[in-house]
């Protein structure tokens, strides 16, 4: 299975088993997401035999729905719960990507997850990185999963 297909399968598994949210690849949405608006990005770094960044760019409405499903609460603003939940989505995806790229686990190290959020910001690519961006649809809106790997 190609890396793109494995990222799609991993994302689906996380959303199905943990978030309890149906998602599908948004074939009608451009992979060029441009400037991010009212969005939270969960980021995890990979180091070792494969270096790069795994990011999930999630609009506030989708992030509130994800966090609400996780915790059983209603949210209307970005707070520590939302940051923690989106960081954990990035963490699980990063772990799955590591499992795909690494044979036994010690050749790639994962950073701790972090988040960025704001009304308007850009997320730049690592220079010369191979970039895979996959848009997904959920009932609360579209979000992006992005993997940048240094080549």
């Amino acid at each position, binding site marked *: 299975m190609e890396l793109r297909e494995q990222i799609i399968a991993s994302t689906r*598994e*996380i959303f199905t*088993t*943990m978030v309890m949210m149906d998602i599908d690849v948004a074939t009608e949405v451009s992979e060029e997401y441009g400037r991010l608006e009212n969005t939270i990005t969960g980021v995890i770094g990979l180091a070792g035999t494969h270096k790069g960044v795994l990011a999930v760019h999630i609009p506030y409405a989708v992030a509130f729905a994800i*966090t609400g499903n*996780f*915790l059983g609460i209603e949210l209307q603003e970005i707070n*520590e*719960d939302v940051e*923690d*939940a989106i*960081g*954990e989505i990035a*963490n*699980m995806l*990063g*772990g*799955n990507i*590591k*499992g795909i790229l*690494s*044979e*036994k*686990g*010690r050749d790639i190290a*994962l950073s*701790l997850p972090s988040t960025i959020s704001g009304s308007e910001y850009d997320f730049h690519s690592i220079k010369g990185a191979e970039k895979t961006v996959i848009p997904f649809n959920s009932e609360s809106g579209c979000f992006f999963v992005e993997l940048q790997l240094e080549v």
Partner: protein
Amino acid sequence: MEKQEEEMGKNVLLVDDSSTMRKIIGRSLRQAGIDFDNIFEASDGVEALEVLEKEQVDIVLSDINMPNMDGITFLKEKSTRESIKDIPVLMISTETGDDIIGEAKSYGAIGAIKKPFTPDKVNEVLGPLL
């Protein structure tokens, strides 16, 4: 039914830097029909050791990738403390490579559950250990 009654009275410690994940694990335990009298929480290995020294804990469910003290270091440190070294630890982590899980087991971990997980998976792995 008798077995369920026997399981009552046990305490678990959840170790994960994500408060969201600790809540999800707690919910999964309930959904899996695994009842604990007390669910203690810690956000890293340092806090986990403090809880183990103070509270009666029957089993620990621990993440690996955490700040301050990660899950492997926690296992190493715990194995040196006579009063808590025999408390079983099950890893719940995105880190499930053979090398890392092998190292965790060499310091006393009794198994591992990969994130993401379902309540059924938690029951399948944890149930026989209780």
